[in-house]
């Protein structure tokens, strides 16, 4: 999963308190931490959460036993940090499911024919990030790891410390809720805000 970069020696040195080795880890993995925090918390919280993750990593790296990949351990700390931040916020109610089914209109440009060659517009990216923020934290965590980080359910269950079945249920609920939210937004922007 993630990086194939072999950090064993660097991780070992960092766990001995070697700041230079730790700096290498930060440079190598800062994108992973920031990317996950951004998707979990949006623009507003990603930066602070990333700082917090690295403080936690420095404090606890001597507990890293190498039983799993370093990236798995880092995902775990990042997710825990983001979920802790979210826990402090109020839980949102379940979205109202209307009589008509959520329908997402055809995507612009050549998305459907060649998604790999396409980049998301700033507007579309913001829309997705805002919609993700509306999901329940545990559903969002599973959805982000599954569909954005493209991890297996086994890896997700390891990171979130839950059974694989729960990881699947959370991702499934997250997917359904995200579709409802996005379809609702699409309706509103088409002037069909029922």
């Amino acid at each position, binding site marked *: 999963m993630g990086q194939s970069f072999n950090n064993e020696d660097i991780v070992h040195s960092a766990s001995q308190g070697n700041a230079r080795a730790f700096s290498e880890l930060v440079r190598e993995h800062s994108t992973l931490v920031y990317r996950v925090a951004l998707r979990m918390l949006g623009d507003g919280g990603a930066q602070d959460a990333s700082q917090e993750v690295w403080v936690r990593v420095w404090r606890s790296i001597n507990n890293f036993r190498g039983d799993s990949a370093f990236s798995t351990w880092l995902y775990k700390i990042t997710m825990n940090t983001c979920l802790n931040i979210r826990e402090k916020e109020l839980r949102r109610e379940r979205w109202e499911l209307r009589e008509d089914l959520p329908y997402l209109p055809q995507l612009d440009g050549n998305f459907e024919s060649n998604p790999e060659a396409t980049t998301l517009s700033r507007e579309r990216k913001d829309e997705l990030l805002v919609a993700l923020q509306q999901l329940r934290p545990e559903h969002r965590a599973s959805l982000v790891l599954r*569909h954005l980080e493209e991890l297996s359910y086994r890896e997700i269950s390891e990171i979130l410390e839950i059974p694989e079945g729960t990881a699947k249920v959370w991702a499934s609920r997250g997917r*359904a809720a995200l*579709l409802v939210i996005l379809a609702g937004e699409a309706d509103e922007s088409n002037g069909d805000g029922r």
Partner: protein
Amino acid sequence: MTWEATEKRWEALEKIGAYAAGELDGEEAREAELLLMEDEDYPRLVESYTRMLVLLSVMGQESPEAPKSVVNNAIRRAYVAAFLRGAEDFVGGLGRSYAGAFVYYLGLRPKEA
């Protein structure tokens, strides 16, 4: 909609989502295919899910760099912490050496066998 009807809709929505994501196989996939035939709007739901999954996949391929301030701050903290740890060890070691010398000076160290 009644509570039961709403729950049933969510269940169908989730099952069709899992089907669109290619996460069902065998019996579960067949059940989802039967479900798709129950409502003429369900195939459109599969299309909607597919579109959303494409969006997520494209977003997943983008990897925004962490701001430099985050990286620099994490590194600076580590260097400061390592320096303080080193200074603590040094002062501790120095103190122990002085204490050892003092014990020796006073002749309090037990004789070795």
